[in-house]
């Protein structure tokens, strides 16, 4: 049973179509990256999955319960792209509030663990209003993890983080994968998605235009071999073709100094898929 199953999902805001029939699955323990230019429908999809927005058509189910239902919301942790916590709460109090709302029985031990995961243990008594934006974002992640939800929906979780903070989040995502938590990660940071995600889905104008593992999406562009006569490019060849090509060149009496399998990066695939659109 997938953690999240979306079938023919549609959403219209008046004349504007945000989602035009999207099919997507997030498997158990799978980390799926959602990419696309601004306005592609990524946040809308995530919001439908956690019950903030009603779908105009199609279905979204969280572990076989309708997305947005109370049962589904018990199984979801969510970090919004634009969120704010009341400034007067300390980090510990905020997590306690969400423990009570989600029915978590983890108590102090869970809060300690979550604050440690997002490297905020030293700020447990600090008020939200006294935290930097990056700290608030990490607290938001901890909040989303309250109650150990099996599905985590993260909408731009690293947008306010510096490089060190981003590395912390990457480590956290890897830890979640180890724990078997399913994650749908909506991000603009392709390198981040490429590094941590098992699968990537690219949305454009509310439609899914590409889907696959980062390796699948990063297609072979050829093999480059450096010989005594210079660098030769074998277009269309893949990494698997390299030994044969080298053997043929050696048999032809050439000296080989280096071999490089060329693949398109996720960024190149993404740009190709969205046609250079930014909004």
């Amino acid at each position, binding site marked *: 049973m997938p953690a999240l199953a979306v079938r023919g999902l549609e959403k219209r805001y008046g004349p504007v179509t945000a989602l035009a029939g999207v099919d997507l699955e997030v498997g158990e323990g799978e980390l799926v990256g959602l990419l696309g230019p601004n306005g592609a429908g990524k946040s809308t999809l995530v919001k439908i999955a956690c019950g*903030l927005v009603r779908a105009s058509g199609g279905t979204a189910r969280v572990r076989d319960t309708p997305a947005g239902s109370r049962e589904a919301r018990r199984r979801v942790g969510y970090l919004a792209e634009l969120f704010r916590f*009341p400034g007067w709460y300390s980090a510990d109090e905020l997590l306690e*509030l969400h423990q009570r709302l989600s029915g978590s029985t983890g108590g102090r031990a869970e809060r300690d663990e979550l604050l440690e995961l997002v490297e905020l243990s030293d700020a447990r008594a600090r008020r939200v209003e006294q935290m930097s934006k990056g700290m608030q974002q990490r607290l938001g992640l901890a909040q989303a993890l309250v109650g150990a939800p099996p599905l985590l929906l993260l909408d731009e979780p690293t947008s306010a983080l510096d490089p060190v903070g981003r590395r912390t989040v990457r480590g956290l995502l890897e830890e979640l994968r180890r724990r078997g938590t399913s994650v749908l990660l909506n991000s603009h940071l392709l390198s981040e998605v490429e590094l941590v995600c098992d699968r990537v889905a690219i949305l454009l104008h509310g439609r899914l235009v590409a889907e696959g593992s980062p390796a699948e999406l990063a297609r072979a562009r050829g093999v480059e071999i450096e010989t005594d006569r210079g660098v030769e490019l074998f277009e269309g060849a893949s990494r698997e073709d390299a030994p044969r090509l080298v053997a043929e060149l050696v048999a032809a009496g050439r000296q080989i100094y280096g071999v490089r399998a060329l693949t398109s990066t996720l960024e190149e695939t993404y740009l190709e898929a969205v046609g250079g659109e930014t909004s």
Partner: protein
Amino acid sequence: MSSIPVIVGYGLREALRRKVFAVVLLLTLCFLGLYWLANHYVFRDVENITPPAGIDARAFAGAFMFGLAMFATLFLGVVLAVFLTLGVVRGDAERGLLQPLIVRPVGRSTLLFARWLGAVAVCAPYVGAVYAAAMVITGLTGHWWPDRIVVPGLELAGGVAIVAALSLLGSVFLTSTANGIAIFMIFGAGLVAGLLGSIGHALNSHTLQHSAKIAAWAIPFEALYQDGLRQITANTTGLTGYLLQLGPFGGAYTGGPLLRLWALAYLGIVGLVAAAGFARKDL
């Protein structure tokens, strides 16, 4: 249902942390100080007045002053209720405060009800305390006490609870600023309707009386306030009672038990409309 106390606590904490609460408390202290001063001078001067035959000057002054205090209490209670509720849905959603709460397994209607309960838990004791303080000031300064003590205070608190519900309803559809303006306009319209009713009573104008009655039932916080005013001089008869009923701080309109039942039903209807609107809202 177990989420209700958590969200009520969230709302109470928000109320205590917001500067508006401190501002309202400061205004209240100023009002009570000025009210004591006004009572002191009014009742000192009443001793030297020879009123027309049939008028009990002390009762008239006491009821008039206390009616004024009830208006101020209602106004301050409404200010507090509106500022605690005007941005609960759309305002908080626009600021990103609402989404982390809504995705929790808490029903949207539960959240609305709990926020209303939280606002009432702050406003009702506040209204009760100001009402009681004003009554004690008038009683000790002028030796005049209202004919009914408890019911008018409860009706004022009920009126504020209705305004809080209307403000929550408005917060589902309107931005905070628009909602605040709308609620204060409704509040003002209600007061004007009440005054027109008093004038209609004085002039024996059935049209004015009828219009005021419709307005009072359409926005029953005003009817509760008018009923409370009437209650404080329920046993005051003769010319004194008649003049007090002419207003502006004496109620000519008696709502009775039906009004109180309607106020409860009204709260339910407002709550249902708000819950239905919120359930369909994309955040």
